[in-house]
């Protein structure tokens, strides 16, 4: 029944094998002075920003043309290279620096100017006196080009349909919905403007002022449910039109002994749109046709802070940070329902706006010292308080733009405040030449507090304590090999769960509560607060096998087990009499999380003019969670959770794996030529294995495997025609194939409850060619 995906034994075997291999390497004969690999073969869009650092250091102007073989949003997701056809290649860098005299300098830089995603910057000043800068970035996000919708007004915050339109999913697909479907692409643009000014106020004081403004524009997908027309939902694009302004001013005082930095940060988010209306396609009955969603509210944030460091002696340093911030949000509330007249009885919230406010205070002090020649020690304390001062009120719950409500569904907001205190001690000692043993201890106490404990969820706790202990050994086994192995143990425990509250946090109605009608399962141990024990082992090694060959490897493995009994064997007690007996232990929710990552980098320089490089990584994460299908009874009964109904239990193991390998080379066949290439292959899978008890009929099965396969080949050549002129030739081939059960084999009308978009999991195959001339070094 269950697919064989859980493989702790196999994983541990891999970990032990690689760890042993690294240890074995230790037995053979320092580190490469530099691991040139990644630097030479940037694991990114070499086509447009290749590994040649000269592009950022030399003065140059680059002009050229490129050609993209196919339309694909996914391929050009962040680069903007979404359309088939030609495109210009353009960029420049011009730095002028007067090294000898008055230290004046200026620099202008532009990159990928021929594409939708581009960068421009300028900076100048007198080094050591003042500097000013201005930057512009445009980042595009092309998400989906396979989506279809039936509404008019796509791209706006008001999607409409003809006034007589009404359709029932399933029944009216062919006649009413399918003919209206039309493609609309989902994309966003973010324009980022930055200006900065910095200067020196004498020898010891300096200041910096930075301003950044982000404009976001475009559409994203969202679901939107309706109360009328059968309780259905639609997935549609909502409009984004907002800006975030951020300003930071810093005044610094610096001497060899003491450093002080005082700063102020201001951030303001302004959304030009406060709501999004979508005509209900499932009914045209007057008073039931509208659906409305609130959009992200405008808000602001102020923070003052101070960072300080003080060198008490050569070996002892005291550092600290003090920060105080206020986050506020006071956007006017929408009416309860779009289907009731604004201001009508029952459609007016108790407040016109939230007046939400969260005040955060942070203090950290840390002492680092060297009590003896071979020992380093750090002791730190942190206090981090988040005081949520948002006013509390009772709000009518009108489900999904319904027009009538019941007092039993009245809701009360439940702002949560937290106070965290953390104390840690870390130290290392050189137990033998260059052999370092490091150990650390940390305790974190996190307290939760609410306006009224009555509104706690049974999964909530008053506090948690998280303790961590770590030990690491770093040892150069020889001049050529440095290895390290470390182990960290973490455990979280906390206060008892409140066995008298079975409600979602916000349920208000006293009658409803007095009936002990459950809304939340009392055995749920939410990931956020649950007890757990975690073991983590990390091994790494760097080996310079010879002057031309170097390797670097690492293995990271963790296992986090939620503490508690297994739901399949423990009978939940009757509700509520003996509930407390099992409450501290995880029963439902995540019970186990495991992961491993194995990496190996190799660099080989077979000749002075040829460098080769390879890397590989295998990563795996798996979570196991327990569930129990149950329904709330009229009073104290937990239907489906009695001793006789434990067969309603289920579990899900979600396994994500991916393997990445890459190879590359850079060759300088003669002085005027640089050629090279990289190839990267990534294969990822996701498997959700589901098992159900005999009480669940029909029994559920595992999900089909989702997978994605990416092949990327990049080739480049640079020919220096003369000292002032180079030619660049670039080629990129990228192929992505993927399967995802959330989208594949589903049309817009495949399911009765939600009008989908018909989008497909991404796949593309693109070739891109580029040739450009680079005029440089004038």
């Amino acid at each position, binding site marked *: 029944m269950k697919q064989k995906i859980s493989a702790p034994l196999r994983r541990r075997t891999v970990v032990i094998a690689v760890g042993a291999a690294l240890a074995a390497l230790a037995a053979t004969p320092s*580190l490469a002075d530099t*691991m040139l690999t*990644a630097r030479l073969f940037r*694991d990114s869009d070499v086509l447009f*920003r290749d590994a040649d*650092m000269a592009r950022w250091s030399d003065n140059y102007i680059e002009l050229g043309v490129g050609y993209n073989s196919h339309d694909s949003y996914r391929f050009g997701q962040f*680069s903007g290279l979404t359309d088939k056809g030609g495109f210009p290649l353009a960029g420049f860098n011009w730095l002028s620096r*007067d090294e000898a*005299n008055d230290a004046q*300098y200026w620099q202008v830089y532009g990159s990928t100017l021929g594409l939708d995603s581009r960068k421009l910057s300028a900076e100048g000043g007198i*080094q050591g006196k003042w500097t000013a800068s201005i930057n512009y*970035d445009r980042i595009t996000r092309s998400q989906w080009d396979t989506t279809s919708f039936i509404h008019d007004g796509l791209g706006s915050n008001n999607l409409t349909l003809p006034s007589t339109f009404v359709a029932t999913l399933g029944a009216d697909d062919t006649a009413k919905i399918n003919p209206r479907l039309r493609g609309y692409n989902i994309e966003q643009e973010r324009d980022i403007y930055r200006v900065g000014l910095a200067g020196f106020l004498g020898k010891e004081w300096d200041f910096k002022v930075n301003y950044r403004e*982000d404009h976001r524009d475009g559409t994203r997908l*969202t679901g939107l449910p309706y109360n009328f027309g059968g309780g259905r939902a639609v997935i549609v694009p909502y409009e984004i039109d907002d800006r975030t302004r951020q300003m930071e001013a810093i005044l610094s005082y610096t001497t060899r002994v*003491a450093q002080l*930095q005082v700063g102020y940060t201001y*951030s303001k988010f302004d959304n030009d749109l406060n709501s999004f209306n979508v005509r209900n396609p499932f009914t045209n009955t007057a008073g039931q046709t509208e659906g409305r*969603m609130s959009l992200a*509210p405008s*808000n602001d944030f102020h923070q003052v802070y101070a960072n300080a*460091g003080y060198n008490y002696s050569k070996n002892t340093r005291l*550092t*600290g*940070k*003090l*920060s105080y911030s206020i986050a*506020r*949000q006071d956007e006017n*509330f929408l009416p309860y329902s779009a289907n009731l007249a604004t201001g009508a009885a029952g459609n007016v*919230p108790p407040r016109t706006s*939230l007046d939400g406010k969260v005040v955060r205070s942070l*203090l*950290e002090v840390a002492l680092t010292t060297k009590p003896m020649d071979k020992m380093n020690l750090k002791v730190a304390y942190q206090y*981090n308080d988040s005081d949520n001062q948002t006013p509390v009120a009772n709000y*009518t719950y*009108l489900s999904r733009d319904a027009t009538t409500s019941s007092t039993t569904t009245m809701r009360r*907001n439940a*702002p949560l405040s937290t106070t965290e205190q953390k104390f840690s001690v870390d130290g290392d000692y050189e137990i033998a030449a260059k052999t370092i043993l490091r150990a650390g201890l940390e305790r974190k106490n996190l307290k939760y507090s609410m306006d009224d404990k009555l509104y706690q969820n049974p999964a909530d706790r008053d506090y948690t304590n998280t303790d961590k202990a770590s030990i690491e050994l770093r040892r150069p086994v020889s001049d050529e090999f440095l290895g390290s192995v470390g182990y960290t143990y973490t455990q979280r425990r906390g206060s008892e769960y409140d066995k008298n509250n079975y409600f979602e946090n*916000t349920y208000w109605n006293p009658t409803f509560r007095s009936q002990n009608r459950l809304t939340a399962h009392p055995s*749920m141990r939410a*990931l*956020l607060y649950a007890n757990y024990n975690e073991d983590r082992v990390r091994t790494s090694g760097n080996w310079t096998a010879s002057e031309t060959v170097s390797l670097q490897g690492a293995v990271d493995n963790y296992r986090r087990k939620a503490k508690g009994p297994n739901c399949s064997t423990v009978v939940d007690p009757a509700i509520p009499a003996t509930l407390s007996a099992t409450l501290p232990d995880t029963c439902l929710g995540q019970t186990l999380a495991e992961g491993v990552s194995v*990496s190996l980098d190799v660099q080989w320089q077979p000749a002075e003019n040829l460098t080769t490089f390879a890397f590989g*990584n295998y990563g795996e994460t798996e979570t196991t*969670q327990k569930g129990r299908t*149950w329904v709330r009874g009229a009073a104290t009964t937990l239907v489906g959770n009695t001793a006789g109904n434990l067969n309603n239990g289920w579990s*899900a193991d979600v396994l*994500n794996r991916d393997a*990445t390998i890459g190879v590359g080379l850079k060759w300088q066949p003669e002085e005027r030529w640089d050629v090279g290439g990289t190839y990267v292959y990534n294969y990822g*899978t*996701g498997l*959700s294995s589901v098992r159900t008890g005999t009480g669940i009929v029909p029994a*559920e099965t595992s*999900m*089909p495997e989702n997978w*994605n396969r990416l092949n990327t080949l990049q080739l480049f050549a640079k020919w220096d025609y003369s000292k002032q002129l180079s030619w660049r030739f670039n080629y990129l081939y990228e192929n992505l194939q993927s399967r995802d059960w959330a989208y594949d084999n*589903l049309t817009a009308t*495949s399911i009765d409850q*939600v009008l989908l978009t018909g989008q497909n999991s*991404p796949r593309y195959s693109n070739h891109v060619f580029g040739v450009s001339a680079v005029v440089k070094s004038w």
Partner: protein
Amino acid sequence: MNQTIQKCRAVAVGLALLMAAGLSGSAFAQLGKAPDEPQTRSRAETGATKPCVECHEGFYAITKTKHGVKGDARTPAATGKSITGDPADAMCGACHGDLTEHNKKPRTPGLVPVTFGKKSPAEPQNEACLACHEQGSRIHWKGSKHEQTKQTCASCHRMHASKDPVMVTETQASVCFECHQDRRAELHRMSTHPTKTGFFGCSSCHASHGSTTRASLQKNTVNETCYQCHAQMRGPFLWEHRSAQDDCTNCHNPHGTNNAPMLKTRLPYLCQQCHQDGGNHSSTAFGGKTLPGGANFAANAQRVVGNACTNCHMKIHGSNHPSGARLQR
């Protein structure tokens, strides 16, 4: 009340420390001043045999960097002492120490007081840099993760290069990946930040020189760091989603995953790790039979396909709608 006292105490201790640091700083300010000595001495005076450039031509790119600007009184080029008579050599000694003996006996190892590289001890290297650079983002360097693991400034920075790769957003990640190889692999997953296209560097979130936050983040908390670009999630909201308010990484892995949008686990399973409520559907077992052709498709597909739970509960980061308690509005 106890909490108020605790806060006052914490603030008082912090202010006292800051004042102490500030006052003491003034007293010791003179320590940082260089003595007034001639910047260039002749070879006859020092016994040096030849200019540094004769053996180290490749490293002279440093003269084109900020460190090489003599017009700035703080730089090695302005404060260093040349022992060879060649003014260009002044800056070498500012970081590497007194090179007189090395110049006399260039082939004898161990005569360069401070060398930079992975074979050399970390502390002298870092002390040489921190002598001028302990301010700003380096205030918390001592005791930081990178310092504790004996990383040096030269582990990431190329001081002699006219442009340092780690200081350029487009190339920064490649430097970090030299040690954080698993992060490089994550970059190739289906859902990532725009790091591959050079618009998003590691330092967009991380303070590699140390900070007060776990994982050396730029801001005080994970969420504060994320809100720099995602301020629409900041709230405060009328209806909070507790795990989102607590820590974005409860659900997201910002380095990349195969579950868009960078979710640690697929929906609906991720939601069901905290939500299995009665009277509705979140305690239901969802599996292969909820997909097309399956026996549970008609009843439960809307909770599994498309946006799964967020087909309806789309305000997953918090809602400000007065009827948005279930994050549906």
